[in-house]
Structure formats: structure tokens, C-alpha cells
């Protein structure tokens, strides 16, 4: 997804001279397509993320559309207050591109695991938060939002090849995409775990459980009406995200259910424990937190077994 993102950005930059790319000294083999085509609009700010976001704020105030790039933890967490007091407070078109949510950088260890980035970014008013599900949706999300007047946080995964079946790259800012319909259970998902969510739905279908899957690529502005509409149809819903269960998609779904007074029981799949310092591959770590395809299937079965709300 990150390569698709930079490729598309390099294309857009051909047409719009306001586009800049600033990296916090990361993106080897990712940023080159932009840097090679637009060397005068590519900057390496060094390992200094606060300054990077501050620079972008100053550049945006002067009319540019700067994209700042780093691993999600460093792009989102280190300069968070600069995001808040910069592009958010001034409502400027800065784009913060965090690569690798959750366990994408699995073996790098807990310092590189972004587990709360979406939650903290979702709290900022006027900051669009976009988590594309695959490379194709990444491209269309960038295409749909590159000239948005306000700021955007993108969480962009590392997987360039997996496609989410039924998504076909569809993206609407503030929308959600139903990629599979069903009757028993609604699976809500976001970001690069969407493909595994669909895989779990397919496997559950083999067991006779009919799952709908809604891909929520925009966490802010939240697709409230579409979530309401989808959640109202099901007695049980399961949110699936590569993130702490607090703050992200599961929290958004809970807010919608509560505020709309829906009769829907929500089960949240995500990371519930702090780091134990253990490294491993992305797949292994995800499984440890119940986020493998098998883990998701198990959570879905449990949620169904718990059943709907009683009156």
C-alpha cells in the first residue's frame, strides 16, 4: 500500500506543483519514485518528526500541500502535539502518512507497533483519518482526498499485493463499503486486516454462518449513517482492527450503537494487552492477539453464541 501511495502521489504531483513529500529519514525503496521524479519537492527532514510536522505546517500555511512520511508510531505519536497545534488548529492541508499499522513491523518490536495511532488521531476535530484496506483502495483514497482543504492522517500498510475481495478499490471520504453481505453477523473492519476479515467470513460461510463485511476506511469523518444502517440490520456485530480495542473502529461502532439506541451486541476484536516485549512476525503476533483468520472466526462464533440482546 505504501508503494501504491507514493506512486500515486508522484503522479498527482505532476499535475499540482503544491505537492511536497517530506520524510523523517524513512522509506528506503518506497519514496524513490517521488524523489526521482520531483527532486526539488522531496525533502528528508532527518530523524526529527516534530520538526517535520512543524515544517509541513509552515509550508501548508504558505500554500503547499505537504505529505510527511514515517513509520506510523513516529509519524503519529512523537509529533502528536505538533499535529494538534499545527495542521489541526490551523486547518491546513498537511497529510501525515504513517506506514505500517499494528504488527506490520512485527520483528522490530513494540516501539514500532502502532496500536493507538488511529484512536488518538480520530479525536482531533477536522482531521480526516483514513485507513485503506488494500493497495487499490489506497490509490483511490489518495486520489479522492489529495486536495482536501483540511489535514489528513493516513495509516498505510506494507502489503502491496493482497486485494480485499469485493472492494475493487472503492473509497468515499466519510463512507463505508459493504464488500460482502450476510444475514447472521456483521463484521466491521478497517485497514490491512480487512483481507483476513473477508477470509474469515468466507470460512465461516463454509460452516453455515452468514457474515456481512463492511470496510470502514474513513474513521474520521465517521460514516455514522452508514454504520447505523448496517448495524441496525444485525443483532450481533464484531469489529476487527489491528489496533488497541480502545479508540479505533470498535469504539466508533460502540458510539454509534449507543447513540442511535440500536439493538445490536458488539464484540470488539483488537489488541487488548500491552506489549510483553516479545517480537515475531506479523502473522504470529496477530495470532497472539486473536487477530489471525482462525482467531477472528473464533471470536465471531463466540459473539454469535452470546447471542443478541434480550429485552
Amino acid at each position, binding site marked *: 500500500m505504501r508503494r501504491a501511495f507514493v506512486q500515486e502521489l508522484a503522479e498527482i504531483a505532476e499535475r499540482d506543483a503544491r505537492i511536497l513529500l517530506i520524510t523523517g529519514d524513512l522509506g528506503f525503496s518506497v519514496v524513490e519514485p517521488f524523489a526521482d521524479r520531483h527532486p*526539488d519537492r522531496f525533502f528528508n*527532514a*532527518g530523524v526529527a518528526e516534530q520538526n517535520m510536522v*512543524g515544517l509541513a505546517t*509552515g509550508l501548508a500555511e*504558505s500554500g503547499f500541500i505537504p505529505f510527511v512520511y514515517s513509520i506510523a508510531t513516529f509519524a503519529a505519536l512523537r509529533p502528536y*502535539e505538533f499535529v494538534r497545534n499545527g495542521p489541526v488548529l*490551523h486547518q491546513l492541508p498537511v497529510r501525515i502518512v504513517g506506514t505500517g499499522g499494528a504488527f506490520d513491523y512485527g520483528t522490530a518490536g513494540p516501539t514500532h507497533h502502532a496500536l493507538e495511532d488511529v484512536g488518538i488521531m480520530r479525536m482531533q476535530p477536522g482531521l480526516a483519518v483514513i485507513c485503506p484496506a488494500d493497495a487499490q483502495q489506497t490509490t483511490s483514497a489518495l486520489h479522492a482526498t489529495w486536495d482536501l482543504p483540511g489535514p489528513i492522517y493516513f495509516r498505510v500498510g506494507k502489503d502491496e499485493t493482497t486485494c480485499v475481495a469485493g472492494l475493487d478499490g472503492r473509497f468515499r471520504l466519510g463512507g463505508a463499503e459493504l464488500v460482502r453481505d450476510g444475514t447472521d453477523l456483521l463484521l466491521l473492519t478497517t485497514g490491512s486486516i480487512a483481507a483476513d476479515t473477508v477470509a474469515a467470513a468466507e470460512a465461516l460461510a463454509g460452516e453455515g454462518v452468514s457474515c456481512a463485511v463492511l470496510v470502514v476506511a474513513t474513521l474520521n469523518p465517521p460514516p455514522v449513517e452508514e454504520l447505523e444502517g448496517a448495524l441496525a440490520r444485525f443483532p450481533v456485530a464484531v469489529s476487527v482492527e489491528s489496533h488497541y480495542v480502545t479508540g479505533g473502529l470498535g469504539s466508533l461502532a460502540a458510539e454509534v450503537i449507543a447513540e442511535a439506541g440500536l439493538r445490536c451486541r458488539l464484540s470488539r476484536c483488537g489488541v487488548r494487552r500491552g506489549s510483553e516485549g516479545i517480537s515475531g512476525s506479523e502473522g504470529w503476533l496477530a495470532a497472539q492477539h486473536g487477530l489471525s483468520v482462525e482467531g477472528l472466526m473464533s471470536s465471531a462464533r463466540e459473539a454469535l453464541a452470546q447471542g443478541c440482546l434480550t429485552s
Partner: protein
Amino acid sequence: MSEALTAGKAGGEASVTDSDVLSASISLQPIRRPWGSIAPARLAALQIRLTILEQAKRAGVGHVGSALSVADIIAALYAGGMDVADPDAPNRDRLVLSKGHAALALYAALHQRGWLTREELDTYCGDGSLLGVHPEHRLRGIDFSTGSLGHGLAMGAGAALAARLQGSSRRVFVLLSDGECNEGSVWESAMFAAHQELSNLIVLIDMNGQQALGYTRHVLDLEPMDRRWDAFGWDAQVVDGHDVGAMLDAIDRLDPVTGPPHVLVARTTFGRGVSFMENQIRWHYFPMSDQEYERAVDEVRAAE
């Protein structure tokens, strides 16, 4: 002139003409060196001080000492140092007041230039006002909201880089406090600006030796400040932060086109102009009593 510069009493309305008189006496056009800029800048500094005292008293708020500390720096910038003839001109010079807690001094200067009305100024710290203790970018002539120390230089470096990319001759001035240089982000930006040779970036450091809970030499020693910036690749020099003429001369001599970014380490006195506030930590916080206010105004007027 000093007769005309009568500051109003706290809460009163007698002061409404003070800055109007001054506004009329100072050309709103940029006053170019070498002739005629020092005297108006000094006069501007006097009026800034009186406005600081008047508004801080009227609003019953603190941060008086910090604002007085930068009064001469702000006066030098807005009465000759910066090209600020038209607040809406895209190529006017920019100021990032990174030490946002001195915004009252900036409001006073913007009022002198006619960018803030008397009515707007009189809402300082009131309910529903855009004029808080820290500056707000929604105000005309203020480009960046500040208040969180360590943020302004990064935005200023971005603005300076933008000017270069756009082929604009505008310069970006950033006013830092010395305590602010505790922030690591300041040095991130310092490295970047030097690496990119942002010649159009001019930092002024209000070197008053105080920070919120004590003297900087006791909290986190910052000396030798000029050598630290020099080591980071900046063109660094020390100036008297209360000598508007010296600051105007120094700014005039800077090369905004080639070479490294510039820093003027401006030696200042916290609370300058009011003897009982000078170098006193408490005047970072406290509002003035009626008696203190009258004494402060008398001292500031007597100094001219």
C-alpha cells in the same frame, strides 16, 4: 508627545485616544533605513509598553514581565525591521511569535499599525475574544497560533522554505524565549534550517534569563547561547534587546538571500521599564494592583 501618551486608568475609558495619537504620528508605511526609523521605533516601544500595562491591568491578567521584555524587539520589527506595509500582501515578512505568552506586545504593535482596532484590543482576554494570552492565527496579520513552546521555529522554517520554493523575497522572523530553547524541537529545527541554508529565516531570542519557575542559569543553563547556535551552523550574534537602533542595524546587515540562517541573541531584562518587575519571577504570573499599575505607567513614561 509624552503628554499625549497618557495611559488610561484600569477599567476606564480615558485611554481611548492614546494609541490613536501614536498611530497618527507614525507612518503606517514601512520606515526604511537609514533615516528616521530609530526614533519612531523607540516611540513605538514606549506605546507598546503602555498598551501592555493598560490591557493587562484592564483584563486582570499576568505575563506582564514577558511582554515588557520583548517590547523593544517587537517595536524594532514592526517599526522598520520587517516589511509589513500591508498585512494582506502575500510577500510581506512573517513573524512567528514562538514565545506566544508575550502576545500582548504583538497586539499592541498590530494596533499601532492599524491592523487591530481599539475595540478589538479592548477585548483582550475577554469572553469570546480572539485576543487571548497567546496569539491566534485567525487575527489579521497573525499567521501562526502559538503558545506551546518549541513549536514556532519549525513552522517558521517551513514558512521560510516555502518562500524560497515560491521565489519570494519575504523573510520569516521567529521570536523565541530563552527558556523555550530547553525544547529539543527547537534544535531539530535549528539543524534543518542550517542544513537547508534558510538565509531568509531570522530568529530573535529574548534572552531575559528567566523561565517559569526560576532563572535559566538555575533551571537549565543555556549559555553560551550564541555559540550553541553557531555550532549548529547559524550566523549568530549578540545584540542589546532594548536598543532598537542596534537591532535595526543588525537586521539590516543580515543577508536574507545566501548563507546560513540568522539568530540575534537579544540580551533583555524581564519586565524592562518597570523597576519592581525587572528580573522578578512573580511578574510572569501576577496581575497588577491599582497602585502597582500607576507606578508602572509613571516609570514607563518617565523613561522617555
